[in-house]
């Protein structure tokens, strides 16, 4: 059995090192488990709504605030790059990286680029705004849309 705390730590260590979460094959290799056991451990990793697996593949889809697939919300530091799921997660990724980063996104309406250099120790100010479309009670009905 894969220890859920060790699994969570491994997932995020890999994200911070590689930019994306580990595959079930990589998890199986790391913990000396079979791939089905790794998929089961991911499915059982009940840590709120933080790590979500893809409904079809069972692989990690998002490990909040990071995305396993390319998105328009990009965090960059020293040539290393991470994707996040939305503007809230973009700032959250800067929090988790914990070092000065550049955030990149764009205005959903005009496409105007949003670029911000953020030092997590210093906070953030900007003339830009974020629009929360859905009320909180609907966020987890379809997290992809949210």
């Amino acid at each position: 059995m894969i220890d859920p705390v060790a699994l969570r730590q491994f997932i995020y260590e890999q994200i911070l090192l590689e930019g994306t979460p580990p595959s079930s094959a990589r998890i199986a290799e790391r913990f000396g488990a079979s791939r089905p056991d790794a998929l089961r451990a991911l499915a059982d990793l009940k840590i709120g709504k933080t790590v979500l697996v893809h409904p079809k593949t069972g692989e990690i889809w998002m490990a909040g605030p990071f995305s396993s697939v390319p998105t328009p919300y990009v965090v960059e530091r020293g040539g290393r790059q991470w994707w996040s799921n939305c503007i809230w997660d973009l700032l959250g990724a800067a929090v988790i990286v914990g070092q000065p980063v550049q955030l990149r996104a764009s205005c959903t309406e005009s496409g105007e680029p949003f670029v911000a250099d953020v030092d997590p120790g210093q906070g953030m100010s900007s003339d830009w705004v974020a629009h929360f479309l859905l009320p909180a009670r609907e966020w987890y009905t379809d997290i992809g849309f949210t």
Partner: protein
Amino acid sequence: VNRWLSKTGFKRGQVMAMDTLWRLSTGWYHDPRSPSWEPRSLPAVLAATGLTGEFWELPR
């Protein structure tokens, strides 16, 4: 935001300044590599950020 709403037909949600969003992010996210990591209470984080009212209420 208004132009996007006109284009898409969506109903307006809530507009947030980036410094507020930063406080929300630092309240919610903390390093999951820590062995003692536990998810925080989202209703508590929203309230601590000053996000109260019907729009910010989560299902019980």
